[in-house]
């Protein structure tokens, strides 16, 4: 009896939500709009929507309008699996975009690859995501590149000798610190303190006290912007004057708002240059502020770029999955993206200059750019 009832419900569910609008090109997106990751999910959604609206305002892709189909995955792997199926089978999207974290993205990637539909991860960086298969791409900067660039910056440009490492205990934070550590050790610096902290932590005074005791001249702390704001303001409160070096997780004006004056002088390794004169960057920054009510962050920019890359490939070759993959792999110097320009896609991830930004006068500004191929191309490629 219960089985029958279940089956009946399944059928109703399927029929009730079934229906395809003809003519439009559908791009699928999964983002965490509820739960702990809701803020990032919202930014990613707004970023993707801006890209779609700009594309449509410019006449769509070869005359066809783009339709963004999105669902909330609550940053859960099983939700993302179900949503991936729904996007592929029911909405019949021609390409999927992940605006979510590594765990759900990893689960969805397997389904996109299996179904033969390309997918682009915006900012989820777990290495196993693009290893899933030949249809899975990533526009966000990988942890190896970011960590290695950070290492070169710390030792060669900022002259650090004694370095403290504070790592956020998730795939992002841990892999960043791993590559950073290898690089700085290779360049002759010394690690005087190293510790992981759990995600969601907001009290760092005691560990920063210990770091102060170790007397470093540079602190490499991996964090998302809320944690980063806590680390930076508490470090300055304790009178720590060492340079604090962050990454793209810091890259949100919310970081500066929350950390206040303590944010001044913080340097981050990222892929977004807010001082860039390229029109797409300034247009995106203005539009994001208008729609989200807060200035743009890296997550929103990455989702924007993921849609841009998808649209570029669709415009070049149409909707065949293998052709789309080939078109993305064939990208050379794509200038029309916010976190770029993308020089190429190697190993299914975007190769672009690494931007170094510094907080000055309450805003991120240009500090340095790495374009050296030995730094910006991930090791092993």
């Amino acid at each position, binding site marked *: 009896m*219960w089985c029958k*009832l*279940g089956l009946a*419900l*399944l059928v109703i*569910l*399927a029929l*009730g*939500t*079934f229906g395809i609008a003809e003519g439009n090109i559908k791009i699928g997106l999964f983002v965490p*709009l*509820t*739960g702990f990751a809701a803020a990032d999910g919202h930014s990613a959604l707004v970023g993707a929507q801006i890209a779609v609206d700009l594309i449509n305002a410019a006449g769509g892709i070869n005359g066809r309008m783009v339709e963004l189909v999105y*669902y*909330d995955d609550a940053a*859960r*792997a*099983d*939700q993302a*699996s*179900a949503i991936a*199926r*729904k996007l*592929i*089978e*029911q909405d019949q999207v021609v390409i999927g975009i992940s605006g979510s974290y*590594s*765990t759900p993205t*990893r*689960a969805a990637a*397997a389904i996109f690859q299996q*179904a033969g539909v390309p997918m682009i991860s915006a900012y989820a960086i*777990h290495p*196993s995501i693009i290893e899933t298969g030949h249809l899975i791409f990533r526009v966000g900067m990988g942890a190896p590149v970011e960590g290695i660039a950070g290492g070169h910056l710390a030792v060669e440009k900022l002259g650090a000798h004694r370095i403290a490492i504070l790592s956020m*205990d*998730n*795939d992002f*934070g*841990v*892999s960043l610190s791993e590559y950073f550590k290898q690089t700085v050790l290779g360049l002759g610096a010394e690690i005087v303190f190293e510790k992981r902290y*759990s*995600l969601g932590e907001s009290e760092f005074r005691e560990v920063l006290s210990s770091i102060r005791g170790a007397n470093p001249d540079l602190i490499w702390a991996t964090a998302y912007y809320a944690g980063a704001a806590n680390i930076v303001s508490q470090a300055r409160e304790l009178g720590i004057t060492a340079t604090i070096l962050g990454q793209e997780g810091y890259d949100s004006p919310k970081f500066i708002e929350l950390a206040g004056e303590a944010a001044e002088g913080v340097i981050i390794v990222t892929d977004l240059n807010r001082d860039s004169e390229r029109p797409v960057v300034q247009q995106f920054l203005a539009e994001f502020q208008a729609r989200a009510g807060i200035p743009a962050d890296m997550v929103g920019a990455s989702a924007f770029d993921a849609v841009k890359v998808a649209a570029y490939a669709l415009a070049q070759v149409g909707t065949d999955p293998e052709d789309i993959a080939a078109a993305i792999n064939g990208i050379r110097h794509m200038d029309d993206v916010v976190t770029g320009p993308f020089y190429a896609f190697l190993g299914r991830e975007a190769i672009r200059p690494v931007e170094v930004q510094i907080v000055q006068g309450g805003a991120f500004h240009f500090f340095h750019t790495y374009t050296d191929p030995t730094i910006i191309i991930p090791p092993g490629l």
Partner: protein
Amino acid sequence: MPIGYILTVGTFTGIFMILTVSLNVLTGYAKQVSLGHAAFFAIGAYASAILTVKFGLSFWAALPCVVGITTLVGVFLGLPSLRVSHDFLVLSTIGLNFIVGSVFRYFSFFGGSMGIVGIPMPEFFGHPLGTAGFFGLTLLFVILTILTSFYFSRTWGRLAMEAFGEDEVAAKAMGINVAKFKIYAFAISSAYAGIAGALWAHYVGSVFPDNFGFDRSIDILAMLVLGGMGTIRGAVFGALVLQMLPEGLRVIQNYRMLVSGGILALMILFQPMGLLGRGSFLVKGFERLRGRLVSHEAEDMP
């Protein structure tokens, strides 16, 4: 027809049915309220992931080990229930979520924060199961769980559990070995949750420490409460509704959590026996309807 999507939702619904039915043994029968069921779920998932990925076992070879491990862990984690009761136990089980998650994150043996990826699909005569095959497998386990649980509900064990669930002192006075049955309840419950975990891990293909948080435990308890504590039909129905509802509610996806929080509170306030529990309005209505039909039939008889 988006058949793969339906089968996927069906598979996860089945997994949560196993979880809810297993929680029913612990919370419905033995009245040991657990807000830590996701911890047992996680242990099953991780056990199967490690046995297949690190030790190269097949899903089928790993499954008995998984059941063994989760049963043992259930016994061990059930020990506090002998010392503490009621609210203290609830808080200990909340703690289990955090402790188990932290252990998986902390020790690199469990993959640390990078998780365990590349968990294979179960094979059936040398062929990896597809979406439909896996749905069938899940359905099989759901039926097995329901059948064994149904069998258990007819035994002395369930009576003993309900007895000490109502009144521990009286049960002891009647000669029931309360400690033994409490541990049984934890062991049985944990073993089923382990199977659910193994299914989840092999279907999703990767496990991370943050997959099985406290909010999952709340979800599972909410399913049981909604369906009706103490009945298998209630457990199954609750999982069905709360797993399907979010899919149907995607239209109003921004308000989903608000609605499910509200449903949870209103349900327990006004229908504490759940939708299909003993004496709920649906069951009463159904019985009344049947009673009327039966009596009509009786009148019609010559």
